[in-house]
């Protein structure tokens, strides 16, 4: 009984702390959805669909043996094509809901006849996401030094949206970058020139 009394605060405290820290940066940013009319004051739900606390409802009529891990397990699973640091963004940033668009596919057409026609990433520039960091390429710094910078991240050894962007906007930099890009400082974290 004593244990159960402590479980809720122990679970809730880190979550509240994380949300509080996140919203410290989110306040006033483009991802601050609390003020939106539709959100009901909940700022997280737009990106982080709340987990249902209620027991499973009636199973599907045509699939009575369905279990939740099979049918709803994908939200936490990492796709082979891209990590959660990209897939979560692409749910909106695919050219429909959010204006800034991204595509996880730029590595698929390295020899396309006219690559200039590909609008693969940012508006006006072109940066792939969901690809392995080119650790052995001389044009790039070693992954270890990139990670050691403390700003750019390479989740799972891949370049994801969250490598350069912080969706919670903790840095307060323009375009939600993880650090300022004056004199291409952010770019030079990975690129040698």
């Amino acid at each position, binding site marked *: 009984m004593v244990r159960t009394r402590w479980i809720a605060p122990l679970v809730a405290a880190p979550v509240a702390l994380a949300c509080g820290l996140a919203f410290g940066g989110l306040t006033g940013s483009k991802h601050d959805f609390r003020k*939106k*009319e*539709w*959100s*009901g004051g909940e700022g997280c*739900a*737009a990106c982080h*669909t*709340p*987990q*249902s606390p*209620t*027991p*499973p*409802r*009636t*199973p*599907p*009529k*045509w*699939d*009575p*043996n*369905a279990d*939740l891990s*099979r*049918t*709803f*397990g*994908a*939200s936490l*699973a990492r*796709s*082979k*094509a*891209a990590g959660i640091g*990209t*897939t979560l963004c*692409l*749910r*909106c940033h*695919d*050219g*429909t*809901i959010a*204006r800034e*668009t991204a*595509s*996880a*596919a730029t590595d*698929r*057409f390295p020899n396309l006849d006219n690559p200039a*026609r*590909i*609008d*693969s990433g940012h508006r006006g520039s072109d940066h792939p996401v*969901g690809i392995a960091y080119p650790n052995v390429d001389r044009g790039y710094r070693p992954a270890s030094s990139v990670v050691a910078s403390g700003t750019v991240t390479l989740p799972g050894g891949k370049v994801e949206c969250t490598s350069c962007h912080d969706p919670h906007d903790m840095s307060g930099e323009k375009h939600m970058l993880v650090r300022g890009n004056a004199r291409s400082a952010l770019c030079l974290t990975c690129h040698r020139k």
Partner: protein
Amino acid sequence: MVAQTVRRRDRQRAAPLLIADCQPPPRRDADQRLQCERANGVHAPAPMRRFTGMVWCAVLVAGFVSACRAPNQAPQLVYFPPPPATPRVVHLKSFNDLRELVPQSAPSWTSWTRGSTRTFVGTPAGLAYHADTLYVCDTQLNVVHAWNVGTGTARQFGADGETLSKPVAVAVGDDDRIFVADTDRREIAVFDGDGRHAAHWRPRAAEEFRPIALFTRDDRLHVCDAANDEVCVLSTTDGSVIRRFGGTGSELGAFHAPAGVAVGHDGTVFVSDMLNSRVQALTGEGRPLFQIGKPGNRFGCMGKPRQVGLTPGGILFIADAEFAHVQVYDTSGELLMMFGGPDGAPGSTPMPVGIAVATELPPTLTRLVPSGFQPTCFVFVSNTIGAYRLSLFAVNTGP
């Protein structure tokens, strides 16, 4: 001392000559150099030659055997739901290129003359199916592919780089005109059946309009406008506004990011309300009837519903981009099943965003249906990510 010298000479004779030795030292003459080159190339040791020959033979035999076996291999079919439940959906094909779906495919002559000869898709978004033709919005190549899956002919709309900037949704009218929602130009581009740009419609000022989903029924074009969180009903004749309904909010009848729309034969409008994690059913005038789904990860819940597809019999397909599956409901809102799944397995739908329902397909595709399975409709699904961006499923919606 003499014995040591002799042993060293013997070692020198026995030691293989290396590539580095081929760089002629000054004291070596031409014969020595020739001998050195032969030692490294033509005159390899006999055991090595035998081994190399065996490897080549093995490679040739393996290639021959695999080439002979390939046509006889049965395709790997994935059924949903898995046994022991009665199969309702079977995955027929995943593809990025029309040629993977219809092997004899080729770009049409008009495509050749216009310089757009691609038969593959970059990043697909909205889909539509009409008269044996699959229409695929491509937000990477910024064109709309029109693939005739009966003849295997590929065309492209907007390949001139001027008429389309970011096509995300497509719908086809009864008169074969094609309507394309362009979120970058914030307009609806209209093409005639031959692919010529005929008009562009913008029911509001550009900064106040952002079309992200389309559906045609009779002479009405239903447009989901993300800028105003509303559904705008236009006349397909001239693009004039017939009515608008919706608005920003979480209550019934309001939307946040309406990302898909479909209209039933009885006039019921189903709108995918993406950021409210639900699909709403409304009357043709916009009066809310009921909602399907709510935020969560339980049966009857959904994450990020995108395009919706509707069969004439009243089966609703909803692409859920968050949970990487397609949810199937009847028009009363009862959950029937889910199919697809995360990346990696055959039949997966890593991030489904587009759906097109076809009641019948040409023989070029029905050949893929396994014997014993009686499909009542077919569903094309597009994915933003994944090794294969397009998938085709056969569905049995019978009792």
